[in-house]
């Protein structure tokens, strides 16, 4: 048994070369691939963890924001409901005020219209009544009525104050005596005598006729008038009726 040192050295060199080549072409590339994948997986896991952390943070923010939005929405809805209720109440009050104003105005207008209508109707009724009275009185006996009005005129002169009676006596331009018809001389003399007795003097008389008096005898001076006719009586009644309304 002997050892060939040439073969020993050659085999040592061969194995050394094999070690170097396999390290270069096999062990290092495969180990590098494993390391690369491990690094990649670690990086992906870290990225995933980071992404998960970020996603959790964003989810928390979104949840908080949603809660805030919900609270804000609730507050806004409550405010809007309160504002709407206030506006509705205000509008209702305004509408009630306006309606009340309209009702008051309408009632006032209605009252005013009714008053005006009533006054107009009263006036028309008064005119109608006066017309009816005129037509009825015009059918009476003229002589009898005339003699009655002469008596009434004498009573009216007697009822005058002393100053008025004196002013009648002192009328320079005379006294106008107005009747419904033209008087004959006998009637004028009788009437002058009655007036002279009533006044205590004999003033100048002027006899006039006015059918509108219906019936009656009136005294007129430039400064004095003594109404004594149905026309004046009816006018007084109509005025009193109108004023009574």
């Amino acid at each position, binding site marked *: *048994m002997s*050892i*060939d*040192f*040439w*073969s*020993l*050295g*050659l*085999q*040592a060199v*061969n*194995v*050394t*070369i*094999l*070690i*170097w*080549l*396999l*390290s270069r*072409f*096999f*062990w*290092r*590339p*495969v*180990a*590098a*691939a*494993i390391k*690369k*994948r491990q690094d*990649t997986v670690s990086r992906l896991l870290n990225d995933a963890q980071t992404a998960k952390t970020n996603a959790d943070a964003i989810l928390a923010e979104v949840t908080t924001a949603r809660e805030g939005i919900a609270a804000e929405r609730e507050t806004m809805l409550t405010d809007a409901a309160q504002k709407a209720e206030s506006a509705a109440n205000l509008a209702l009050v305004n509408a009630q005020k306006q309606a009340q104003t309209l009702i008051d105005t309408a009632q006032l207008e209605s009252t005013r219209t009714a008053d005006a209508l009533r006054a107009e109707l009263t006036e028309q009724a008064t005119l109608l009544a006066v017309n009816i009275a005129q037509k009825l009185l015009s059918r009476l006996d003229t002589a009898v009525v005339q003699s009655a009005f002469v008596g009434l005129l004498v009573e009216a002169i007697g009822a005058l104050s002393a100053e008025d009676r004196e002013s009648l006596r002192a009328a320079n331009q005379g006294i106008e005596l107005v009747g419904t018809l033209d008087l004959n001389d006998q009637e004028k003399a009788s009437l002058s005598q009655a007036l002279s007795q009533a006044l205590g003097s004999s003033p100048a008389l002027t006899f006039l006729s006015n059918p509108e008096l219906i019936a009656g005898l009136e005294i007129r001076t430039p400064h004095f008038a003594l109404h004594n006719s149905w026309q004046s009586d009816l006018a007084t009644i109509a005025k009193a009726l109108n004023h009574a309304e």
Partner: protein
Amino acid sequence: MNSPLQANVLFQLGPVPITEAVITTWAIMVILILGSFLLARHLDTLPGKRQAILELIVATLDIQIRETSGAAPAPYRGFIGTLFLFILIANWSSLIPGITPPTAQLETDAALAILVFLSIIWFGISKGGVRGYFKSFAAPNLIMIPLNILESVTRIFSMFVRLFGNVMSGVFVIGIVASLAGLLVPIPLMALDLLTGLVQAYIFAVLAMVFITATVEESQPTVKDSPPASPPLEERES
């Protein structure tokens, strides 16, 4: 039948005799290098079956190195892994008729043992420095220096003798049985030789890692124990 203890010189290359073991070693080198180059050409982040098998081999080797040495496997992966693969392929090359495994020749095993011896020196110096490496011979004390030096040689000697004896004996037994009993009779012995070849390759690689680790650990500077956090019991009682 030639004696397994005698190298079969095929031709001379100048003064260098080229034996059958050298030729077989070159063939194994070509197969391993070409195979590695072709298999490890296109490695991707998402591995296929081919890459998964390659990564399984590397991961298993890393686990063995880490469990044996407790250190990171990267510095030792190329050396230990190549030793294992070469010895395994060389041992299993006996299955090819007419091929004698290179590890059945004393020169190949001695060359492997010398490489392990040199690698122990290399890793010892690179990890602990020259002083640390030489200090590893003085463990646990100076008296052990001669014995440690002797051990560093004898353990290497035992490595290659163990590998040579197992592989050579397997080849020798198979040759004897084949020459005496017939063609198919050695098949069970050849199957056993497969297991023997795997075990011997594993033992050689693991022993190389153990020797390297022992030297590297002993070449590291010793760390003094830190004082205890609590005072001794006597001081507390007094």
